[in-house]
């Protein structure tokens, strides 16, 4: 199995792990971690699968660079919201219905 395929498989599992975590975890910080793991998994599949023949492909590599910057922007906003929410309510989780 080529390096690309090994990491594409790992990426698939990471994606599912992060997705499940994003759905079931309660603490906001953990959810944010899970969403980052999910994104990293998708990035690994993007590059790994494209490079399954062992040759580097600059196109998905550039896409992942873009994706990493977008991910850090989203993470920063999520953390900012979580902190503002915590500062007002003292809570760190969203569960328990709306209102």
């Amino acid at each position, binding site marked *: 199995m080529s390096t690309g395929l090994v990491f594409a498989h790992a990426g698939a599992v990471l994606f599912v792990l992060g997705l499940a975590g994003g759905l079931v975890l309660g603490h906001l910080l953990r959810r944010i971690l899970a969403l980052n793991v999910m994104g990293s998994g998708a990035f690994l599949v*993007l590059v790994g699968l494209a490079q399954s023949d062992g040759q580097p492909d600059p196109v*998905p590599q550039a896409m992942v660079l873009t994706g990493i910057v977008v991910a850090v922007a989203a993470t920063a906003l*999520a953390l900012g*919201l979580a902190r503002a929410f915590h500062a007002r309510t003292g809570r760190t989780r969203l569960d328990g219905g709306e209102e």
Partner: protein
Amino acid sequence: MPAAYADPSAGLIVLPLAWAAAAFVLGPGRGGGMAVVALMGQCALALGLAVGVMQTGPRVHAVGGWGAPLGIDLAADGLTVLMLLLAQSVALAVAVYARGYFADHAHRAQGLWFWPQMGFLVAALNALFLSADLFNLYVTLELLGLAAVGLVAVGGAAGQMAAALRYLVVSLIASGAYLMGVALLYGAHGTVSLATLGPLLAAGSPRLADSLAAALMLAGLLAKTALFPFHAWLPPAHGRAPAPVSALLSALVVKAGFYLVLRLWLGPFAPLAAPAGPLLGALGAAAVLFGSWQALRTAHIKRLVAWSTVAQLGYLFLVFPLLDSGGQALAAAMLQAVAHGLAKAAMFAAAGVLVLATGRDTLDGLAGVASRLPVTLFAFGLAGVTLMGLPPSGGFLAKWLLIDAAFRAGQWGWVPVVIGGGLLAAAYVFRVLRQAFLLAPPAARFQPVPRRLEWTAFALAAASVLLGLRAGELLALLGADG
């Protein structure tokens, strides 16, 4: 100056990005006038593009001059232009409204950085409607999602933070699923260009990777569109945001997800998607009934309007099982998208006026409003006419075409949903109107409201009704896809 500088596709993306950045540099609370002027320019650009597409057919703009699949293409056909026109006109009206809304003392603090955020939101919408590249669409989805979430949070109250967080989590999970689909497609076909992918996906029997990619991407987009059962994030987010923000979100942002589903469904995923048609239709039907039911139960004005969005989005998905049957299902969906966009922006604008005047967001507080704010209430009622689907509104024509398509396809089951949804809409609109016509309790005090707010709501509502009379042009645009 070469004519190339007036290229509408490029202008519709560059112009809002430019005013967003300029508004940020100008400083807190500034940039509203510039935004209104720029949005007028954008309306002109969108009209120019519409005329161009009508006359010469779909257009492609190869960014960087490379062309797909190496570069990124912007593509405009009838579907694109219709969404662009809707987005520019609603955004212009909302900008006019927001200048009055945030000038009010109570909202000044919320509006400090509204203009740059709105500029990026409009740019993201236009970029999304125009993009013909799956990865570029991912970036536009993220830009749109972050802009929308940031705008929900501007009020700063705990409930708004919770709503924004819920929205952000759903939005990020959805984009993650979408991105995974893009990764699988690039792995399988070596390209993310819509035009290049179409023939590749149609050739040969579908592979597991292709079906999985389609499923992940569609699921992500449905969550972003808040289709039942992915709707739970919408009512708090749209109900709690400041009124101009709610108008933008309900009228435009959720439509972006629907537009992409439709674009992919009719485009590269056409060979894979057909079996999912009945499922989407069933979810749409459930959304119509459940959303309307919730709108009948809530005690808050803006929450009622938000639940109505959940219901009205359901109609858009009723067309998926009917697309192959020859009828005007696509036209019905696009008319519904445009009519609902105008009507819902009007309703949130009117609801914002009502909340501003009565000082609270409850139906109980509305007693006596009818005599004080007749224009606003009339706007609310007119928008309601579109949502109920009464003639001559755009909503009526959309629902008529939908019923016609269902009969042609022999799928009678959808007809009672369309009619029942209209009756339920009538019921929740009259809940508001009846309360407003009650006599005001003696102690009731109404805050004065800037005229501008009332009249923008009215203009939007009137447009949603008059749309029914000018639907021929819109349908001709869709026909230009050919």
